[in-house]
């Protein structure tokens, strides 16, 4: 499979999209785009160990969510959201690519708006991916 996390141009473009999201959506604190097997492509915000641990956890959560969707025959997974006291976490697959975006939003943001904002960024990243050699 294409090694997205080793594509320098893609990493830069993804970083720019994450930065764009944080500009449009001030409540976004942390963002990351990771491969479905947990490697970090790009991050934004203050993350420990370059986001590697968050990358792995995102990969695991996404896979577990898909396993539940399969079990219940609910079709394709769209996004995964967690609400916590201090904010929300949203994870969303990037189109048909083996990539996932994850972002945290503080409690100024409603979950619905967070998902809406993130979807727009996911579409933009899909556009960037079409410019690479990456195959779905």
């Amino acid at each position, binding site marked *: 499979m*294409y090694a997205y996390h080793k594509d320098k141009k893609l990493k830069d473009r993804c970083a720019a999209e994450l930065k764009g999201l944080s500009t449009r959506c001030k409540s976004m604190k942390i963002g990351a785009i990771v491969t479905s097997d947990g490697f970090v492509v790009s991050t934004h915000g203050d993350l420990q160990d370059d986001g590697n641990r968050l990358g792995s956890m995102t990969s695991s*959560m996404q*896979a577990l969510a898909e396993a539940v969707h399969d079990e219940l025959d609910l079709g394709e997974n769209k996004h995964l959201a967690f609400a916590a006291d201090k904010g929300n976490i949203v994870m969303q697959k990037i189109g048909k690519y083996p990539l996932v975006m994850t972002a945290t939003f503080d409690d100024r943001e409603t979950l619905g708006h967070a998902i809406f904002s993130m979807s727009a960024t996911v579409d933009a990243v899909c556009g960037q991916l079409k410019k690479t050699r990456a195959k779905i």
Partner: protein
Amino acid sequence: MAEHVILVAGPMGAGKTTAIQSLSEVPVVSTEAANTEIDRVNKATTTVALDYGEISLDDTDKIRLYGVPGQRRFDFMWRILEKRAVGLIVLVNNDTEQPLEEVTYFMNQFASIHQRGGLVVGVTRSDLKAEPGIGDYLMHIEENGETHGMPIFTVDPRNRDHMVMMLFSLLTNIQSRAGATDNVCLSQG
């Protein structure tokens, strides 16, 4: 219902998912993702959270089998899953880079299971690479402080008989340790 959790651990490509598929009587819950490290381990997908299978023994007892991801970066899943486990199957592919070190690495990572229950080691893909042999593994394990009596076998994870033999050896070994120390409790249910 008493539930007995057995963990299957080992490096990426050792055959953990296949082993659980061989043993489980229910469709295995797998969390596979496309493998971007194909240059390192030649397989299309890799487990990123867990594999889950089960064996119902009767109305009151069930063995739950959990396979953990092999890569170090998923070690948070190891910590989550090891809590309820009473036994550990370590699988290592003999054609991996440092198979001896891999075995002791996983034994150390899951030392708590070994202490409260037991473990068994299965060497896979020894048909593709004969060395190191079982004697080498035992020597290495004992050099790393493990006491005598560790069950270790060459196995094919696709072979259900091999996997049943490993599971039975694991539980028998836990039983004989319980007889020797009287401080092992198998059921966590």
